[in-house]
């Protein structure tokens, strides 16, 4: 890609574009490169999605004026075009169909979240069923139960990890 002919602003690898909790209503469209959507939970960073060229982000704060719900960081060099909030809202009032693509993308994200919710529910259900079965088992010494519990926890962690891995690439194909 020719640097001179790329629009937007260039972000270095790992540079933060949007900070979770910050107040801002600017929306972004990726012009080149990739960015990741991360959620910080007590110092643990969970990657929620990986977005690529043409993808939109930051649209939630544009509409509900709430603080940013996640952090967005550049993965490698990424060039991102910011969409100014005030001008866009005026345009959407004049031409509501402008919001259609954003609504479609939000619909896709809700579908993905629903799918993730079902898979999480299944994994949690399997784990609780296993624990109940162990509780019902009588006469087994405690030291024999420990490896089984640890194996179940490992399986649960594996399931949740697969869940994130499985749905991160799906967001790349968002319209």
């Amino acid at each position, binding site marked *: *890609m020719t640097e001179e002919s790329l629009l937007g602003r260039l972000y270095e690898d790992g540079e933060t574009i949007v900070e979770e909790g910050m107040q801002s209503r600017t929306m972004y469209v990726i012009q080149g490169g990739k960015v990741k959507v991360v959620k910080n939970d007590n110092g643990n960073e969970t990657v929620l999605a990986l977005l690529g060229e043409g993808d939109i982000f930051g649209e939630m704060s544009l509409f509900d004026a709430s603080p940013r719900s996640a952090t967005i960081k550049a993965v490698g060099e990424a060039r991102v075009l910011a969409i*100014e909030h005030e001008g866009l809202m005026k345009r959407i009032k004049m031409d509501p169909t402008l919001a259609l693509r954003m609504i479609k993308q939000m619909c896709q994200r809700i579908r993905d979240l629903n799918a993730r919710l079902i898979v999480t529910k299944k994994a949690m259900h399997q784990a609780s069923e296993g624990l109940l079965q162990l509780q019902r088992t009588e006469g087994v010494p405690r030291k024999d139960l420990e490896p089984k519990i640890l194996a179940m926890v490992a399986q649960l962690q594996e399931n949740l990890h697969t869940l994130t891995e499985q749905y991160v690439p799906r967001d790349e194909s968002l319209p």
Partner: protein
Amino acid sequence: MSSSFTIHVLHSHPKACCLHNVISTRRGARVILHDGARIAIIGGGPAGSLFCIFASQLARDMGMALDFTIYERKSFASYGASGCNMCAGVVSESLVQLLALEGINLPPAVVQWGIESYFFHTEGGSVEIKSSRLRQRGIATVFRGGGPAGSLAKGIQSFDDFLLQRAVEHGACVKRTFIDRVCMEGDKPRLYSGGKMLQDCDLLVGAFGIKAGTGKMFEDLSAGYKVPPTTKAVQSEIELGSDWVERRFGHSIHIFLLRIPGIKFVSVIPKGDYITVSVLGKYPKSDHITAFLDHSAMKKFLPSGFQIPQKFCHCFPKISVGAAIKPFARRAAFVGDASSTRLYKDGIGSAYITAKAAAHTALLHGIGEKDFREYYFPACKSLNRDNLFGQHLFFVNKLISVVSPVSRGYFHIVQSEQKNLQKNTPYSDVLWDMFTGSRFYKDIFFRTLHPWFILYLLGAVVLYPIKKAFLFFANRWKGVVL
């Protein structure tokens, strides 16, 4: 059969129409697009392509499929004037953002240069203006055709060709046929080329820009339609090499407000290896280009010993400076420059607005004259009204540039504002929005009417000479003491 006669018959006897795409309502016949309807678009520039893209997208959302044929004689991939739609080739900040929201991201081969600021050069000095809202390269410069004559194999992709290819992806069929006759046969427009009938269509879209001959053909077809008035500009492409362009022009568009006879103002637009010099004046001539390149203010931007080539790519594009009268008829709509366009600015942005409004009217409301009048025409009227505010703004701008103390005062305020972009920059924003076309003229106009805006400017007009005089005497005094 004349078009007006056909229309008259249909309005008089709405029930007599048994066409399957005419719905009888209590108020009369309503003409709508049905599944599989044929749409002929005359002109494959941005307005024609965008109409096709928006109509096709909406039709798909509504569960319909339409048949689009775009008639465009030019190949935009060609070099020189034969492939070019002759325009300065600036895609405004707001249009870049709107297109990105529509999913049309301009690729690097189309964007010749990303622009982040404007430089204003006057006889009194220069000032750079950046947007206080977004600090980014938000404006794109493009070639409308395959590039200037002689630019073979430089990896340039035409902006018009890019949009046309997107229209093809949306199902449009592009024909290189020149339409020389259009008439109403029965209820539908019929297209001819060289005496041969090509097709009937359910809807005819005129996106032919400001071509006089084609415009006349449509004036004859559609009762009441009149093409917009135009003026001429002169522009040329000068090859300097991308390193030189980067070093001397940066990522800025340069506006020269100089006192050269016959010239209103000159824009210099960087585009990769080239700069586009666009001169606006009353009676533009190629001599104006040479006079400008010879001016001392411009010479410092050119390599030493730069000689104007004997043959350089230049053209005299027409610019629409008014609005078309009644840009619609039953089963016909005119979009882009053939309809309404923003004064001196953002012609491609106007094509976006009119093409989208016409596409949505055709799909959501109907293709009768009444539908276009009620739902499409307001978009054109809004542009026309906005241009009235634009005329006032350009008049005041001219007035300010003539009255030296006021222009100096304004210049001084803008210079101070640009030193600290974190604070409010209302005077810079007015210039930025006027010259980039990123806001409607009406918005800008009302901002300039704010009492504080006027008072502060008047204050600067009075205080600036006093401050200058004070500094002058202070320096002299310092000199005497030392």
